[in-house]
C-alpha cells in the first residue's frame, strides 16, 4: 500500500455542547485524489479547519506527513497548499499582491507558472480585491495554490463560484498535479467533478464518516438500474427479494425497468436469461444516486442537487 499522507482517526470536535464532528476517520494516500463529500453542515469545513490547526480537536487524532496537525502545524504547512470554500481577501490589496504574498509566506517565488496560471484563469491581477466577484476571489486563491510546490493540496469546495470554463481549467490542473504524484484532498458538492477526478471517496453526514472507498466499491453497495425486454412473458419480479421499484413499460409488452442490489445481480440475470433477453440496458448508479441514497436513509439531506 502506498504511504499514508494524511490520517484521521476518530476525530471529534465540539462547539460547546454541539458536536460538529462525532467520529471522522479516513486516510489519504500518497499520489491519490481523495473526494470528501457531504451536505451543508455535515462537518466538511470543520474537519478541514481542524486539519489545518485553525480549530483544536476535542478528541481523536489527526496527522499529516506523520506529524500532529495541532502541534506541528507550521512544519506541515511548509508542504501544503489550501483553498477555502469562501475566499475572503483584504479589500485594499490587489489580486496580484495577494498571490505574491501567499507564495512568499511559503518561501516560494512568483514563477512563469504563476503568470501562466493568471493567463489560464483570465484574472486581472491589478484590481483591488474589493472589486472582485466571488469567482475572481476564488481564482486568486487557486492560482496561489496551484503555483505553490507542495506535497498535499487541500481544496474546500473550490469551484462553487467558477463558471464551467474555469471549472474545466481547475480540473485540468488537479489532474496535472495527480500525474506529478501529489496528494489531493478535495471537498466538493459537484459530484460529477468528484466522480471524474477522485480515486477514493469519503462520505460524511452529521459529523460522521459513513462510507469510504473507491467509486467501484461503493457501487457494489448499491443498486444498478436495469431496463430489460424479453421474448417470453416477463413475470412480475417485484416479489423477488433483491429487485426493487419494478415497473412495467406502458406501451411495450414484456419490457420493464427495476433496480437490483449490485451484489445480487448474478441471480437476477440467470432468471432473465431463461426468458430470452431481447434488449438489456444496465445503468450503474451515479455518485449522485449514491449520495441521495445515503442521505435519504437518515433524515432529508439539505445538499444542493447539482448534477
Amino acid at each position, binding site marked *: 500500500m502506498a504511504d499514508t499522507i494524511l490520517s484521521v482517526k476518530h476525530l471529534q470536535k465540539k462547539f460547546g455542547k454541539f458536536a460538529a464532528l462525532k467520529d471522522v476517520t479516513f486516510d489519504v494516500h500518497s499520489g491519490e485524489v481523495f473526494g470528501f463529500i457531504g451536505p451543508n453542515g455535515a462537518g466538511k469545513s470543520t474537519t478541514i*479547519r481542524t486539519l*489545518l*490547526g*485553525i*480549530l*483544536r480537536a476535542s478528541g481523536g487524532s489527526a496527522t499529516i506527513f506523520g506529524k500532529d496537525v495541532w502541534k506541528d*502545524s*507550521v*512544519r506541515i*504547512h*511548509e508542504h*501544503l*497548499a*489550501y*483553498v*477555502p470554500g*469562501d*475566499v*475572503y*481577501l*483584504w*479589500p*485594499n*490589496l*490587489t489580486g*496580484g*499582491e*495577494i*498571490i*505574491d*504574498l*501567499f507564495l*512568499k*509566506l*511559503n*518561501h516560494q517565488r*512568483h514563477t512563469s507558472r504563476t503568470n501562466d496560471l493568471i493567463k489560464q484563469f483570465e484574472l486581472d*491581477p*491589478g*484590481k*483591488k480585491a*474589493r*472589486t472582485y466577484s466571488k469567482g475572481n476571489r476564488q481564482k486568486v*486563491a487557486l492560482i*496561489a495554490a496551484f503555483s505553490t510546490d507542495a506535497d498535499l493540496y*487541500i481544496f474546500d469546495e473550490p469551484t462553487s463560484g467558477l463558471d464551467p470554463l474555469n471549472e474545466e481549467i481547475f480540473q485540468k490542473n488537479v489532474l496535472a498535479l495527480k500525474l506529478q504524484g501529489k496528494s489531493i484532498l478535495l471537498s466538493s458538492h459537484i459530484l460529477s467533478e468528484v466522480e471524474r477526478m477522485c480515486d477514493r471517496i469519503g462520505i460524511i453526514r452529521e459529523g460522521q464518516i459513513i462510507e469510504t472507498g473507491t467509486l467501484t466499491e461503493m457501487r457494489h453497495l448499491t443498486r444498478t438500474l436495469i431496463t430489460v425486454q424479453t421474448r417470453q412473458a416477463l413475470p412480475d419480479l417485484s416479489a423477488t427479494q433483491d429487485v426493487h421499484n419494478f415497473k412495467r413499460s406502458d406501451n411495450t409488452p414484456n419490457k420493464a425497468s427495476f433496480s437490483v442490489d449490485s451484489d445480487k445481480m448474478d441471480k437476477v440475470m440467470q432468471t432473465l436469461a431463461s426468458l430470452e433477453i431481447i434488449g438489456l440496458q444496465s445503468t450503474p448508479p451515479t455518485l449522485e444516486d449514491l449520495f441521495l441514497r445515503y442521505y435519504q436513509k437518515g433524515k432529508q439531506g439539505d445538499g444542493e442537487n447539482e448534477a
Partner: protein
Amino acid sequence: MKHDAYQQSGFLTRFNLRRDWLVILIWALILGGLMAAVAFKFNDLYGSRSSIAAIVTTLKMPAMVSMFGTFVARAPYTTADIFASEMMVFMALFMAVMNIYFAVRNTRGEESNGMLELIRSHAVGKQSPLLAATLELFLINVLMGLCYFGGLQVSGMHGMSTMGNLLIGIGLAAIGFMFGSAALLMAQVSDNPRGATMLSYLFLGVTYLVRMLTDVQNPDFTWWSPFGWIEKLSIYHKNNWLPVFLMLGLTIVLLLLTFYASRHRDVGAGLLATRGGRKRASVFLTGPFSLVMRLDRLSLIVWVIGLVVLGISYGSIFGTVGDIMKTNPLMGKLMGATAVDAANRLVVLKFAALLMVVFAVLVTVPSVQTLLRINGDERKGWLEQIHAKAISRGHIFGSYVAVSLLIGTLSMFAAVFGLWLANNSVMTNPLSFERLFRGFIGYLPAIYVTLGISALIIGWLPRLQTIIWAIPVYGLISLYFGNLLNLPNWAEKLTPYGWINQVPVSNVNWTQFGLLMALSIILIVIGFLGYQRRDLIEN
C-alpha cells in the same frame, strides 16, 4: 413614480430598529446616564456662591475655554450655568461619534457586507434602505434628546429652566443628527465603510479644531464652525434657538446631497472609486508584519498627521493660555516679573499635562483598533489562508501587537511634536523639547498597559472584546472631568491613564515606567497563551 423609490421605507425602519435596539439602548443608557448623573451631582459640587465663583475663574482661563468652550453666562451665575458650559461641547462630541457610528454602519456597512443587495432584490424602493437608515438615525437622536431633557427635568439643579433643558435636548439631538447626516453623505462618497468613517471624522475634526481656535482667539468667529453652534445656544440665559435652525438647515442640505448622490450611483460604488493597483507585490510585502503594516498604512498616516495637527492647534494657544496678566491682571501686578513668568510656565505645563491624557486616550484608539483586527480579520475570513501557510500563530499575533505598539508610539510622538512645534513659535519663552518629551515618555506605559489588557481580552475572551473600549472612554471622562466633578482619587485611578504622575510638570517616574512596561509585556504574553491554545474565530 416618485413614491416607488421609497416603498417599504417604514417597514425597513422598524426592521432596523428591531435589529439595533440593544446597541441603541446601551448608547442611550451611557450618554443619558452620564448627563443625568452629572446634573444630579452638581448641586453638591457647585451649590454655594464661593464654589461657583472659583469654578468660573477656572472656566474663563483660555486652557479651559479650549477644552469646554467659551464661558458666556452673565453674573449672577447659577449651578446650571456651570453645568451648561462644562457639558455641552463634550456631549456634542459624543453625539457626533454615536451618529457617525450608526450612519456608516447602517448604510455603507450594510452595502459592503452584501446585505443591501439582498434587501434591494425584494419589493423595496431604490432609496428605501437609505431613507430607513436616515429615519432610524433621526429617531435615535430624538430618543437621546428626550433622555437628556427628562434627566435634567428631574435632576432639580439650581438655576435650570424647562426651556433651557428642552434646548439642551433639542440642541444635542440636532447637532448629532447633523453630523450623522454628514456621515450619510460620506457613505455615498467613499465606497467602503472605513473610508466613510475616516471622512466623517475628518469633518468632525476640522469643525472641532476651528471651534477651539476661534473660542480662544475670538469667540465671534466660532459661528463659522458648525460644531461651534452648540456653544451659541446660550442655555439658561437667552436660550437662543437660532443655532438649532442653522443645524437643521445644514442637515437638510446634507441630506439633499446624500439622496442626490445615492440616486446617481450604483450599489457598491462610491463617488470616489477604488483605483487599481500593483500587479505584483512590492518587495516589502513579505510576511505577516509587513502585511499588517500595509493594511494599516493609511490609518497610521491619517492618525499621525491628525495628531500633529491637533498638537499644533493646542500648542498655538499656549501663548494665550500662559498669560496670567491677561486673565488675572490683579494677580499679575502683585507678583514680580520673574514670578509672573514662573506662574505662566506652570499654567502652561499643567495645561500640557491635561493635554497628554487627551492625547494618550486618542492614541489608544488606532492602536487598539489594530489589535482588535487579530479577531476581526479572522472573522472576515481574511486570515484563513495565512493559517494554512508555514506561519505560526505566534508570528501572526506578534505582528499585530508590534504594529499596534508602533502606531501608538508614533501617534503619541506626533501629538507631542506638534505641541512643541507650535509652542516654539507662539511663546516668548517656549517649553523645551526635553520638557514636553517627558509627557511622551511618561504616558507610553499607560498606552502599552491598555494594549496589554486588550491583548489579554483578545486572547481569552474574544467574543467580549468590544468591552476594551470602556478603558479609554472611562479614562477620558474620569480624567477630563475628574477635577471639575471632584471625583474621588480612586475613581481616577481605575484606568492606566490615571496611574501616571503629572508629566511634563514633574519628572518621569522611571521606577514606575519600568514596572508598567514589564506589566504590559506580561499581559501581552498571557494574552498570547490564550490565543495559541484556543479555536480561531471563524464564521
